[in-house]
């Protein structure tokens, strides 16, 4: 019997709670009526954000007493808040309630975090999604409306958006409490509510179109190659978030159409993923891009995404990587886990394209060590944290190497094919960057097994910035990086070839700090053993608010004839790209 009545009481409380939650036209009109009473003013914005409902009471005085009791018991959580007490008339059946709410919070996560913290102390509460219409009255005693300064431009928009509070002595005056019969104000309803509709999410569509002209001033090197040509890239992007910012979906497509090279004409899903943001964790499912590393001239430890090499020989363009990733934030750092169920092969120029090997890489004939080939599940883990001026990252990767090595296979009709071979590897890496005054220090190192002998590579250097150089507003950055890789040390190495084995990178970054964000980065990588040199210059500036022009030039020379990259010798180019953002 007692059990049943208890059950009905809980049920009734639930119904009341649901009724209290429902955006109710009568409630709104009732509150507006209340708001027209003396000493109360409308604060429309307060109802627009995420809030937390602590309780609902039968009278304002009891609600105020309830607030003081809660705030007194949990000052660490609640002292910063000004409570809103909202009158709601639910009709003859239910009667009038006074909801006790705090907020607005920055987003749903912040509101949930507060509610969970209160829950841990035994305080029931629930999260209120933003509403479009509601009024909040101040719990403090009648106070004069807007304390706008005389010089503040009177604007109706302003007074609607901002929540002015009375000036001077801030402490919440303890208003005379109507002697309430009950010694402890008992909230009427704090049960878990039926979710009320959150505002419909609105997506954002954007992206860019970028025509590009690549000029090769020198003659073709191999039969079938073309020279100077046009191409155009399109990158549409879509983003939508809901659940108060806790969940979102992002998609970024990419397409390039190239005048000459059928292999450079390609499509990719750079991003296509759902994300859940918890308080101290994050989960992503879908295609995504992840960057690790610190150096400018080479990205030794960056391994999650495959390089989209036809885009740019600098290797900074990446293909979207399908994955499930989980990040956990702790005091001792952030740990990220990656499971990658699908592998993208590296893109290479076709027979008509420039910047290629004498025999074009036969991407259709790629070989794998893994029996499952591109469906081999790859795994990675990374830990990262900041300590004072340092950021440090440690990572391990197991799976299919993003870098292929190259095998020559006889063609059936005679001649040879150059075939990429993707080994299974284990790679452990560390990356480090630190800031000390005008100096930025950078270091990356990795060791890898799976290509035969274990390989080891490291790079380190600095960027030194001179601000206000030449008595102007411009900054000049001086960069120096030293790169070492032992994979070419023995002649029988079966590891993928690398450009950066015994190299020094010196660079100059020039930032004008002007309205157009003009910037130039020039650098040269020199192999101190072979004398091979690769020079590059990249410059860009904005054109108005929605466009940008970029210039890039690269030259390659003095690669010895036995070097895998010797075919790049003198395959110099200049590229002009105009990006229009929509």
């Amino acid at each position, binding site marked *: 019997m007692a059990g049943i009545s208890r059950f009905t009481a809980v049920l009734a409380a639930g119904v009341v709670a649901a009724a209290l939650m429902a955006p109710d036209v009568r409630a709104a009109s009732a509150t507006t009526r209340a708001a027209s009473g003396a000493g109360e003013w409308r604060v429309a914005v307060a109802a627009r954000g995420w809030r937390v409902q602590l309780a609902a009471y039968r009278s304002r005085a009891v609600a105020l007493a309830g607030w003081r009791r809660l705030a007194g018991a949990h000052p660490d959580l609640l002292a910063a808040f000004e409570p809103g007490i909202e009158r709601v008339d639910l009709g003859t059946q239910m009667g009038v309630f006074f909801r006790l709410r705090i907020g607005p919070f920055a987003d749903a996560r912040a509101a949930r975090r507060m509610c969970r913290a209160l829950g841990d102390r035994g305080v029931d509460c629930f999260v209120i999604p933003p509403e479009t219409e509601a009024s909040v009255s101040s719990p403090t005693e009648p106070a004069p409306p807007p304390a706008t300064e005389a010089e503040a431009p009177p604007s109706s928009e302003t007074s609607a958006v901002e*929540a002015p509070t009375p000036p001077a002595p801030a402490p919440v005056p303890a208003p005379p409490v109507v002697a309430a019969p009950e010694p402890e104000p008992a909230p009427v309803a704090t049960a878990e509510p039926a979710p009320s509709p959150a505002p419909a999410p609105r997506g954002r569509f954007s992206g860019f179109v970028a025509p590009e002209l690549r000029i090769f001033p020198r003659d073709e090197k191999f039969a079938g190659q073309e020279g100077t040509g046009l191409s155009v890239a399109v990158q549409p992007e879509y983003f939508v978030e809901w659940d108060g910012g806790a969940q979102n979906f992002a998609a970024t497509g990419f397409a390039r159409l190239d005048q000459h090279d059928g292999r450079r004409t390609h499509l990719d899903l750079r991003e296509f993923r759902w994300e859940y943001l918890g308080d101290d964790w994050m989960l992503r499912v879908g295609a995504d891009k992840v960057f690790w590393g610190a150096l400018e001239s080479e990205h030794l430890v960056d391994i999650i995404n495959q390089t989209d090499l036809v885009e740019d020989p600098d290797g900074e363009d990446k293909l979207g990587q399908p994955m499930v990733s989980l990040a956990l934030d702790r005091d001792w750092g952030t740990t990220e886990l990656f499971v990658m169920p699908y592998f993208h092969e590296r893109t290479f120029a076709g027979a008509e394209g420039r910047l290629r090997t004498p025999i074009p890489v036969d991407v259709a004939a790629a070989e794998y060590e893994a029996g499952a080939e591109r469906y081999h599940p790859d795994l990675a883990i990374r830990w*990262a944290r900041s300590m004072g001026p340092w950021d440090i990252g440690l990572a391990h990767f197991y799976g299919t190497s993003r870098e292929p090595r190259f095998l020559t296979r006889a063609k059936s009709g005679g001649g040879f094919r150059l075939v990429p071979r993707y080994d299974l590897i284990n790679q452990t890496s560390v990356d480090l960057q630190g*800031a000390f005054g005008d100096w930025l220090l950078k270091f990356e190192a990795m060791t890898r097994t799976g290509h035969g002998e274990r390989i080891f590579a490291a790079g380190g250097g600095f960027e030194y910035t001179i601000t206000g150089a030449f008595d102007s507003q411009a*900054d000049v950055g001086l960069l120096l990086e030293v790169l070492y890789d032992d994979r070419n040390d023995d002649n029988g190495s079966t590891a993928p070839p690398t450009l950066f084995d015994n190299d020094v990178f010196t660079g100059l970054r020039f930032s004008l700090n002007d309205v157009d964000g003009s910037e130039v980065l020039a650098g040269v990588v020199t192999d101190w053993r072979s004398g091979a040199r690769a020079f590059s210059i990249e410059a860009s500036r904005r054109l108005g608010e929605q466009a940008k022009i970029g210039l890039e030039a690269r030259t390659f020379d003095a690669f010895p004839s036995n070097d895998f990259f010797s075919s790049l010798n003198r395959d110099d180019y200049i590229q002009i790209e105009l990006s229009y953002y929509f």
Partner: protein
Amino acid sequence: MMRRATLLLFVAALAGVAPGAARAGGDGGRGLAIAREADRRDSGFGNVTAHMTMVLRNRQGDESTRRMRFSAIEMENDGDRNLIVFDSPRDIRGTGLLTHTHKSGSDDQWLYLPALKRVKRIAASNKSGPFVGSEFAYEDMTSQEVEKYTYAYLRDEACGARACFVVERRPVDRRSGYGREVVWIDRDTYRFERIDYYDRRDDLMKTLVFSGYRLYLGRFWRARLLEMRNLQNGKSTRLTFEDYKFRTGLSPADFTRARLKRLN
């Protein structure tokens, strides 16, 4: 574009005072006392978010606009943390700039580049460089902590319809682009009304005027409009703050490098 930066602001707390760190001038310590009182009155705001718009205007009157989202949090026993995310111009949309200011020593600063999904640490020593091409220098955008200057009280003076203290302050950091600054502070509210910036040659370089003040949470004055005029190059920048929200439940964990990497 903005390889380094320090951040906000007049907005951000004039963070806590390390007693004795700032030196009194020859005014019997009155200038320092005024600065400390202004700082004390602005402590305790918790955290804040706002929308910022910068309109850059050159000598010919051509304008260009930057829109940003700003958030900041007060830290116990440390300087503020703040985050600026760009909404425009379009080529830098989504770029995030995270700053951990410290009461002593260098600030920590990171830049998030959305195209590369890359977080770069940046050297926070550049004080005098322009912030995204505007007439605001990075040091103007930093939280103006009391111990970053020495002070001298100059006089009382009318400022518009109000009465102001006029205080001179000199940056302690030799990397500052300013030799001295003259600050008009309202006697009643301790709000900053105007700052004149003098360069290292002691020529008047820039004038900053604050207007559209409103009171939040009954304690914190915030200007809606900051107008910086550069008298040497004829350019000006108008910085507008809108939609201030205080104590929105942000936590220090929302201002970390890991979180910066998850900006959408």
